[in-house]
């Protein structure tokens, strides 16, 4: 290692590099497709490498801090890479790299459309930069900017192509996101009015001196803003409504990362700014409601994308539960679950994108016989689906086990109820994915829809759906890489959970973060 100085200046790379690449790609426009793909992949690969480097550094020598703009921490804006942020950053970089490879492979057969490359990639890269910025941000206002960055990218991706269904879904999504942003801004105004700072490290110290009521108001406003982003129960209705209409790679990365940014912010909020607040009980209840309503919604769906969106909502409940426990074990479980869930949910959505490419539909009432017709897709669906529903020894099981142990260790009646609800949710998730598996893959074929052009319904304004059996090798490879990453969490469960424990301990201690940012222990 070269020492902490050059390493800490690397902290801004995962944010700046994708932004730079997005600018370059916008300048290139629709030309030079191969170069374009290369730029995207190299950028994301570099981000991944830097993230891994940062993770190792943060794990061995404590949080790394970069002050931006030459102003020191409490006044200027800083990026902080501690164990939690670098861990999620590594996973998110790996996932975005796979998704980018998938979308590059997916668009090779659409040579006549120049627009996807010219708009999709820059928007995607801007979103990735926003996600990285949100993870690394050490300042609440910078967190807001990061949210806006990733949201503007996601607005473009969600309404991609401007079809009627996407515009409708986009209206819901955009307005929900805007409402949440406005709430966040209001919370920022209140916070600044009350404390005179927005640097998280300084806020962590100043909140301690505030009256309880003011603290509670700030905490609840911030929590509400983040909860909308994370799709926690009363604020989760927008998610299953808007995600399924977006293009597959976009949905995959939304599902994997955007809600987790909300969860990450809640973890930061609860652990760093408001430790041991009175909000834990409230969080437990909303976690319970999120788990159960989400999974019941998933059971009722007949469309694969909608089903997955509902399981996404439901499993956010597990992470919120881990945060609400506010113990090291609970936080560690939540962190482990975030890592697991990013990978698994993304790979599932990508596989569903492959199903749609192959058959032209994702509705299980029309699908059938995919096991015979496309065994590779079947395997790629089955493994993460079982992983999601928590079949031992996969990481879904391990994550739930950590949370269950943490909940039982707490011992109160509410955590124990939540543990029971978590197990029921897990079982119902298994039921939901098994239903989809049985209908779409296991039963006999419904109708011969493979390998031909299916005319779209009149008035939807969509292009005819082109289904194809041609499968560029990079497509299953990118998904297989993600599935393997998900499986590797089982093999690496020991080191990974130890890392999650260390990250949680660091979060609960608070002191390393604060002193690193404020430069007390150089």
């Amino acid at each position: 290692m070269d020492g902490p100085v050059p390493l800490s200046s690397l902290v801004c790379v995962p944010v700046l590099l994708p932004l730079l690449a997005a600018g370059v790609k916008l300048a290139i426009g629709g030309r030079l497709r191969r170069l374009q793909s290369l730029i995207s992949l190299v950028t994301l690969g570099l981000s991944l490498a830097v993230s891994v480097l940062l993770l190792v550094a943060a794990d061995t020598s404590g949080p790394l801090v970069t002050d931006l703009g030459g102003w020191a921490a409490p006044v200027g804006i800083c990026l902080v890479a501690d164990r939690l942020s670098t861990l999620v950053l590594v996973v998110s970089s790996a996932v975005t790299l796979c998704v980018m490879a998938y979308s590059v492979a997916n668009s090779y057969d659409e040579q006549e459309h120049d627009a996807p490359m010219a708009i999709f990639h820059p928007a995607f890269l801007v979103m990735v930069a926003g996600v990285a910025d949100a993870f690394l941000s050490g300042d609440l206002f910078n967190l807001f900017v990061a949210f806006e960055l990733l949201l503007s990218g996601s607005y473009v991706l969600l309404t991609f192509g401007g079809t009627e269904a996407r515009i409708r879904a986009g209206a819901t999504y955009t307005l929900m996101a805007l409402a949440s942003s406005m709430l966040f801004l209001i919370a920022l105004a209140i916070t600044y009015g009350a404390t005179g700072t927005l640097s998280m490290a300084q806020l962590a110290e100043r909140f301690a001196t505030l009256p309880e009521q003011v603290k509670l108001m700030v905490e609840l406003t911030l929590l509400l803003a983040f909860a909308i982003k994370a799709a926690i129960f009363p604020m989760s209705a927008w998610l299953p409504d808007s995600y399924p209409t977006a293009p597959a790679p976009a949905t995959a990365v939304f599902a994997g990362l955007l809600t987790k940014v909300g969860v990450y912010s809640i973890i930061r909020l609860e652990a760093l700014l408001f430790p041991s607040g009175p909000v834990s009980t409230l969080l437990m209840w909303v976690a319970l409601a999120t788990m159960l309503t989400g999974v019941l919604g998933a059971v009722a769906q007949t469309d694969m994308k909608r089903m997955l969106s509902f399981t996404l909502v439901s499993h956010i409940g597990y992470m919120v539960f881990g945060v609400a426990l506010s113990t090291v074990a609970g936080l560690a479980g939540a962190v482990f679950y975030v890592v697991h869930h990013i990978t698994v949910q993304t790979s599932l959505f990508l596989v569903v994108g492959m199903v749609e490419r192959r058959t032209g539909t994702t509705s299980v009432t029309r699908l059938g016989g995919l096991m015979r017709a496309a065994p590779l897709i079947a395997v790629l669906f089955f493994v993460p689906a079982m992983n999601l529903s928590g079949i031992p020894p996969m990481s879904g099981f391990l994550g739930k086990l950590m949370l269950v142990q943490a909940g039982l260790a707490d011992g109160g009646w509410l955590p124990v109820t939540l543990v029971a609800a978590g197990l029921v949710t897990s079982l119902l998730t298994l039921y939901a994915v098994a239903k989809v598996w049985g209908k779409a893959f296991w039963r006999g074929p419904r109708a011969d829809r493979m390998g031909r052009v299916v005319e779209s319904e009149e008035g939807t304004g969509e292009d005819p759906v082109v289904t194809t059996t041609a499968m560029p090798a990079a497509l299953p490879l990118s998904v297989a890489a993600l599935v393997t990453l998900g499986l590797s969490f089982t093999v690496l469960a020991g080191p990974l959970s130890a890392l999650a424990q260390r990250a949680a301990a660091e979060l609960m201690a608070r002191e390393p973060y604060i002193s690193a940012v404020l430069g007390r222990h150089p």
Partner: protein
Amino acid sequence: MNSVSLLPFAACCVMITVGVTLLLERSLVRVLAGVIVLGNGVNLLIVTSGGDAGGPPFVGRPGMADPLPQAMVLTAIVITLGVTAFLLAMVHRSWQLTGSDEVQDDTEDRWVRLRLRRGELGDAVRARRDAYRRLVVEQRAELANLEAEQAERERLEEADLERRISRVHNELEQWATRLREQGLPEEELQLRLEEAGLRDDTGALSNLERIEQLREEYERRRARQAGREKELFKQLKARQKEARKQMRTAIREERERQALAQDPELEGDD
């Protein structure tokens, strides 16, 4: 800490209220206006939270304004501008596609409504089937009534016939007894009886003929009755058929209406 001046704060409250109210509208243009007003209200709130306006900078007077909220507000304004531009493009696209700027109901809502309509259709079909069944039961009861009436009438007629036959028999007996009392030997009596038959004894003949006539009349009535019953049954069948046809047409119409209302986004749901 600076105190917050009341007027800007009141302005924030009003603007945020107006913004939220507009945000809850269905029309996207109103929503856009709401976003703009709400954004400005929130930005004003940030400036307000920064404290007093303070004196001019660079002059060296004490009590300059806090520069941080102003920097933040600049950022927020730029972001609001970008989002507004995007929203405007989206509204325009929505208007291009659908000719209106109203937000459609979400998929789940439409699905629930579709299921409700299907439930209503099911109820209508069930109601019709029940009505049909009731009709059949009524007509059966009617038929049974008619049959019972008929049986009663036949029974009465039969009894009447029996009575008449027995009266004729009685008369015959009396006549025979009278002859016996006059001391007529049995052979003579039998002979007389035969003679009465041969000689067209008015009393005996009329009795026998009457029995025959009555039988014939009974048969005729029976046949007429059977014809009427058959007619009635036919009528009943035709009525039932009509009812069934009506029910089928109604169900088909309902189905067609539903097929027209099929939603492309909900395809495959049942």
